[in-house]
Every structure is written in C-alpha cells, then in structure tokens.
C-alpha cells in the first residue's frame, strides 16, 4: 500500500477543485479579518497549476510538487503564495526522484513541509494562521501512522485534526498576518488560510485513502 504518482496528481487536482468550490467562501472569510482576496488568490494559483499537470506525465512526485510550488509562487502573491509555495516545494524536496512513497514517507514529507511553512512565516500555533490547521494535521497523521492505524483511518484522523484546528482559530486573536492588525476585533472569525489548509488536508485524504 503506497501513494502513487497518479494519486499525487489526484491530490493536487482535488485541492484545486476544493479551492474552486470554496473560492467565494474563502474570500468572504478574508473580507471579515483580511482584505477579501484569499479565495481569489488561491483560485488564480491552482487554476494556473492544472494545465501544467498534463506535461508532467511520466515524471515523479517530486516534479509534480515542485511544479505546483513554482506555479503558486509565481501566480498567487500575497502571503498565501509564498507559504503554500514553500509547502509544496518542501514536499517536492522530500520526495526527490520518487514515483511512489509509503504512508510513513508521506507523513515525514508533510512534517517537513509544515516545518518549512513555519520557518518561512515565523508563525507559531494559535497565531490564527494556516499553521493552526496544518500542524495538528501533521501531528495526527504521524501518531496514527506510527501506531500502525490503517492509512485510510490515519488520513481521516489527520483531516479531522485539521478541521478542528481550523475551527479553533475562531476565538483566537490573530498575531500574524493581516488579521493581527485588527487586534481584538479578529476574534470570533475563522481564519481563511486555516480553512484553505483544511481543504488541502482533506484533498490528501480523498486522494490517498483510495485503496486504504
């Protein structure tokens, strides 16, 4: 039981589909505590990624993730562009030359990717950012995989952790990103980036749990 290149493509395509579906929702969340463009930004980026996937056929997971990263970096802008770009870039580095990886390797790649995003954005847990969804997701996946939980269930646990982390951003007062300018007024609103991160973790579950 492993994650194939095709599943990697399904993951990226699934994330793009989820963003397209939730574009206005993400922008709405960003208009409450940001500048009303998160959905627009992510949509622009992922729509730029899709047409490139075809030409990647026959390459490996690393190429897939790196191409996704470079495309996001050069089309999204904003805070989310470099951050999601960094996340996929690290996934690419962690899967160098591999056309399929094991659940353990995916968990390690995700750990490294989340670490890279934290380093790039200098955000901690509870700063009310995408980290609040990504870190719990990576932690839950690691534990479950280590405990030998079936991969499908591990991915589900990871997704649930991301969702809970996303919901947990609602009461938080933002310390990073635009929302931090609002001070106390940022409390009571769900962080848009944490929401798109949950969509990413969910897309991974949907793509990888296939044969679980």
């Amino acid at each position, binding site marked *: 039981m492993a994650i194939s290149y095709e599943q990697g493509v399904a993951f990226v395509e699934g994330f793009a589909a989820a963003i397209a579906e939730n574009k206005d929702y993400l922008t709405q969340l960003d208009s409450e505590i940001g500048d*009303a463009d998160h959905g627009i930004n992510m949509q622009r980026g992922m729509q730029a990624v899709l047409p490139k996937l075809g030409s990647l056929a026959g390459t490996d997971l690393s190429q897939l993730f790196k191409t996704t990263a470079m495309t996001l970096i050069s089309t999204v802008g*904003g805070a989310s562009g470099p951050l999601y770009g960094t996340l996929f870039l690290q996934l690419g580095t962690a899967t160098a030359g591999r056309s399929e990886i094991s659940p353990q390797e995916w968990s390690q790649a995700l750990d490294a990717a989340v670490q890279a995003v934290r380093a790039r954005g200098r955000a901690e847990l509870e700063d009310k950012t995408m980290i609040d969804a990504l870190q719990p997701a990576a932690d839950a996946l690691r534990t479950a995989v280590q405990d030998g939980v079936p991969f499908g269930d591990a991915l589900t646990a990871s997704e649930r952790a991301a969702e809970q982390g996303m919901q947990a951003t609602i009461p938080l007062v933002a*310390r*990073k990103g635009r929302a931090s300018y*609002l001070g106390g007024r940022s409390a009571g609103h769900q962080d848009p980036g944490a929401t798109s991160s949950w969509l990413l973790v969910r897309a991974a579950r949907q793509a990888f749990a296939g044969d679980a």
Partner: protein
Amino acid sequence: MKKLINSVEDVVKEELEGVAAAHSDLVKVHFVPNYVFRSDAPVSGKTAIVSGGGSGHEPMHGGFVGLGMLDAACPGEVFTSPTPDQILEATKAVDGGAGVLHLVKNYTGDILNFEMAADLARAEGIEVEAVVINDDVAVQDSLYTAGRRGVGTTVLAEKICGAAAEARRPLKEVAEICRRVNANGRSMGMALTSCTVPAAGKPTFELGEQEMEIGIGIHGEPGRERRALATADEIVEMLARPIVDDLPYRRGDSVLAFVNSMGGTPLIELYIVYRALTRLLDGVGVKIERNLIGPYITSLEMAGCSITLLKLDDELTRLWDAPVNTPGLRWGI
C-alpha cells in the same frame, strides 16, 4: 459594483497599458511579469530602488517611478503582494551595478515575496538591501505579532531615498536614510466608506450612515475600531494625537505633514482636515516645514483620509526638495 472597468480580470493589465500609453516619456511597462520601470533604466552607477505591493493604491507605486524617485515598481493584483519573479525581473532590469534597495511595506505577503526575490537576486550576484516601512500607529507593535503596517511614510521614503540615489549615494547610505525616514515617520488613517475589490464584487465591509472606521490600513480592511461619525476636527484629533504621542513629536520639532485621501475623498475635504491639523500641531509647538496634500496612497475608491508626520532634519528636507519627475509627483524640473 460601479467602476470604470471592462472586466475584473483585466483591471491591473489594462491600467498598466493606460500608464504605458500615458507616460512613455517617463516610464516603460513590462508585462508578464508585470513591472513599471524608468525608461532610462538601468542608470549605471546609481543605486536602484524597487518597490511594489498590491494594486489599488495608485498613484503608489507605479506613479512614483521616474527621475528622483523609484527605478521600478511591481504591481500585484488588487491588494495582493506581487510575486517573487516580478520583483526579481524588475530588480535585474534596473540594477545599474550599484545595487538595489527593496523598499517594502510591512505586510506578511510583501515581506515574504520580496524576501524570496532578494534571495534569488543575490543568487544572481546582485547586491540587494531591503528596508521595511512600518509606520502605522493604529497597530500596537510587538515582537510576537506581524507588527505595524507600512502606510503613508512609504510615499515619503520613496521620494527621499529616490533623491539620495539620484545624488549617487551608495546603497548602504540610501538604505540608512530609508531607515531614518521610517524611524521618524508615523501615520494613522480612517474610513468613511469601505471599498470594493473588483474580483470580490462587493464592499469589503459595511458601514452605517453614522459610522466610521478609525485605524484602517490601505487594503479596504476594517480598522482598529468602529466609531460614531464625527467632525473633521474631532477626526484629526483621533488620528494626529496618537501620532504625535507615539514618536513622540516634541515642541520645536519640524515636520512634513502629509494629508492623504483614501481615494474617494475630494480635495475640498482634505484642506479642512489640513486646517485642523495645523491647529493641533500649533498647540503642541510642532512646526510644519513641508506638506503634501492629495490622493497619493489610496484604497481604491474608499472615502476617508490618513495623516502622516515625518520629523525633518536638514538632510531629509534637502532630499525632499530635490527635483522629482514622475507621473504622480513632480517638481523642480
């Protein structure tokens, strides 16, 4: 949404085409990646200055490209930071061999994209210094947060550093002057109305007929607090007092007073605001040596204003007075 546009996707592209057509004597525009640059760039031996940020703040930054100000500006989508490749290409296009100053407003997106671009430029052997403007007193500063936004002082820094670069001051000194401007500049803004991001199609927030937002930034986001509508004099008190107390500006100080429209507020109101500001500053014994009044750093069509004070010394005053010739700011030539 009522705007003079053709399609929400083409706003930035068509605006840049208009700029290119209107000001071909001063600037050129490169498309994909998008950046506006001095038509005589690269100016060999001159420190180059590159700024950028989301679109929607016109004339900043593209309107400040030209002699005595910026060498290049990188416009992102509306209210969205530009991408590293835009910044990298602009940096390469204007480097005259004396290095490039990245003049960055303190927003996570701007910081991250300029950081990535600087890394890539340095990897190509270009000397890059980055200075971050963070002058918005509406935001409490702290080590644990993103810190203060970069707002009005950015315009003044671009003019003053541009003059220093034009005078062939080396990169390190231009960067030093930029830090000095940032250290001596403070701003605060307010909104009477929200604004509409074209791609979003509706106002970012709703404000009642009797409400206003105090402590806003320049991205149509709500401010520090919502208050009951007040008179111009009261509003100036709410904006200028925190500014004066923050640096603080002291009796005897000379300042440049910058009264800015957020885009939808006309000049007649700005002068009423400026009048109130002169009275407040008289009261604390601060002397206005220079001023700038108009829409220079805007949030699309938002109605409202911001006030910026910059404490002047002889060098900064000289650099402010030096000739500038850009689409958005011109004197002495």
